[in-house]
């Protein structure tokens, strides 16, 4: 019975190993837990799950497997938020859809601003306020022929004109370990060993020289140990057209996070402007001015930008071209500023290389980056790392 349970967990993509399973069996043999299902749940979790980010997955898998055995604790909690939100989505009849008046674009923007000001608290349902579900033109998961989408999936209707992803972009999951091994190896090319920090290693050659100079009296020389001192700044494009590349970006992020000791990462959307952010759920509450980032991390940092560079050329060339807010200076100005601050920079593009020539925005960014754009494949990654090491 328990072997099935173990295989079920594996099938649910929990990273469990045979060794951990044997530990669980051993613990059961030693009667660590009583025979209640609650205790078994806790014991199985402590033996098999080694990261709290997997707790949710484990709860679901456990519940599924022991359904019908008995009421299981933990199952009722932690239903994914997205799922709940989509449940709220109203199923509108075609008649109702027709009834929604089609507001013009300008009017839509105006209305949106007005309602943002009016709205004071979170709201769901209804047909006027911004929130989830409902048939107001604003919010997400709802339906309006010319609506503005705020956060989340666009409910399959795909009629939103402008994306206002207010908070729902999910953070890149850096726990994906599958397939990251190769990426880690590629990233290792960036290692640069240097002696830095506390002097705690005996410098034998130095000591001999020093002692000789000291007329035979011992003169001990110490030196710091060798460390990988490469410093990396990672900028990740998130949302919009990047949704198709989430998996490969997760893998890269996961590999990079465990490979470099000095790694800082920031998110942006489409092109980099005045602000970047670190946590997607709080991207509007917690923004980092790019100026501060440029001042904080010196030119010894190497910069890796990951993005598909697929956007309207206006977003790069025109002030105010951002899809998110009115930017005073064009994206190109900011990109150039970045390159001036960090001369060692590459752009990794998850789009296939053969498509690059057909997209104007890719061409633009490529020329700003002096052709230092590489495809997000293993080979491309190796080329990029070699470029960074020059």
């Amino acid at each position, binding site marked *: 019975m328990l072997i099935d349970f173990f295989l079920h967990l594996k099938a649910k993509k929990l*990273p469990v*190993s045979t*060794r*951990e399973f044997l*530990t669980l069996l*051993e*613990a059961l043999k*030693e009667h*660590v*837990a009583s025979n209640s299902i*609650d*205790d078994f749940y*806790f*014991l199985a*979790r*402590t*033996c098999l*799950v*080694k*990261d*709290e980010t997997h*707790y949710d997955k484990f709860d679901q898998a456990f519940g599924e497997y022991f359904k019908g055995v008995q009421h299981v604790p933990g199952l009722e909690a932690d239903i994914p938020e997205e799922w709940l939100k989509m449940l709220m989505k109203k199923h509108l009849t075609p008649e109702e859809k027709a009834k929604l008046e089609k507001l013009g674009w300008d009017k839509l923007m105006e209305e949106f601003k007005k309602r943002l000001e009016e709205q004071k608290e979170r709201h769901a349902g209804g047909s006027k306020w911004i929130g989830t579900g409902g048939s107001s033109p604003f919010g997400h998961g709802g339906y309006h022929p010319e609506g503005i989408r705020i956060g989340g999936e666009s409910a399959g209707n795909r009629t939103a004109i402008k994306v206002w992803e207010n908070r729902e972009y999910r953070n890149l999951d*850096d726990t994906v*370990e599958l397939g990251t091994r190769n990426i880690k190896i590629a990233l290792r090319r960036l290692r640069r060993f240097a002696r830095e*920090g*506390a002097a*705690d290693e*005996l410098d034998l050659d130095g000591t001999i020289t020093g002692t000789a100079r000291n007329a035979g*009296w*011992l003169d*001990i020389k110490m030196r710091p140990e060798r460390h990988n001192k490469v410093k990396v700044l990672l900028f990740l494009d998130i949302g919009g057209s990047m949704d198709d590349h989430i998996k490969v970006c997760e893998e890269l992020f996961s590999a990079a*996070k*465990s490979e470099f*000791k000095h790694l800082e990462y920031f998110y942006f959307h489409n092109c980099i402007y005045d602000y970047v952010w670190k946590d997607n759920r*709080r991207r509007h*509450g*917690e923004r980092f001015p790019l100026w501060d980032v440029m001042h904080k991390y010196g030119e010894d940092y190497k910069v890796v930008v990951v993005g598909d560079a697929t956007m309207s050329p206006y977003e790069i060339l025109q002030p105010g071209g951002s899809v998110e807010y009115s930017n005073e200076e064009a994206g190109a100005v900011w990109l150039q500023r970045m390159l001036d601050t960090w001369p060692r920079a590459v752009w990794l593009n998850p789009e296939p290389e053969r498509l690059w020539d057909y997209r104007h925005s890719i061409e633009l960014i490529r020329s700003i980056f002096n052709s230092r754009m590489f495809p997000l494949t293993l080979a491309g990654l190796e080329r990029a790392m070699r470029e960074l090491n020059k």
Partner: protein
Amino acid sequence: MRFEGTDTYVATPDLMLAVNAAITLQRPLLIKGEPGTGKTMLAEEVAGALGVPLLQWHIKSTTKAQQGLYEYDAVSRLRDSQLGDEKVKDIANYIVKGVLWQAFEQGKPSVILIDEVDKADIEFPNDLLRELDRMEFHVYETRQTIRAAVRPIVIITSNNEKELPDAFLRRCFFHYIKFPDKETMGRIVDVHFPRLKQNLLREAMEVFFELREIPGMKKKPSTSELLDWLKLLVAEDIPPEALRSKDRKTVVPPLAGALLKNEQDVHLFERLVFMARQNR
């Protein structure tokens, strides 16, 4: 040996089970959780409850795995040799025992705390794999093998600053101390302030959990901060009325500095209070 919580430490059933599993099967227990949820305290309390010695190893960014086993103090031996000290003939005089060695030679059960393992270099946990697995290691300089007669209980804490290698995780039990709910928190406060006025406690807890709910908070106040704050409230003899709910949203609670440790959080909070006052 079983751990059932202590007079000064409230352990939830799942935490107790994890500790007991680690004691029974003699494997390391890895503890994670929000700062201030009592990760380091746990080791002290387990050692206290079982009546065994506690050996602490606090990890810094420069800590090497070898330092937990032993260090060969070559420098002082070199110096002694220059001065013609007799000690110098025996290399064993210059072997400095680390925390693991000390625990291994106890000859009776003990608790080892490896605190904040994520502070160290990425390779650190990997370098300890075999030593924690077999509870033995070889001293190259004196050609002896140190083996634990009784396997110590190993408790490792992590603050999630770095990911730990899979091979290391597979050998541990894992427990994530989640932030206590109101009921558990009540019990924790009871343990620390047995004679606290009930209404003061109730009001204080309301304020505390409301503060934690504020979105955009950089550093949420934790259990240890609540306890500090209560201590201050009691010391200053603040009446419960001062925390009364009707004007809670419009006044900054007394001594809030004990709860909010970040300038931006204080600003955020003051702005919220200001807004609430205007909307009245």
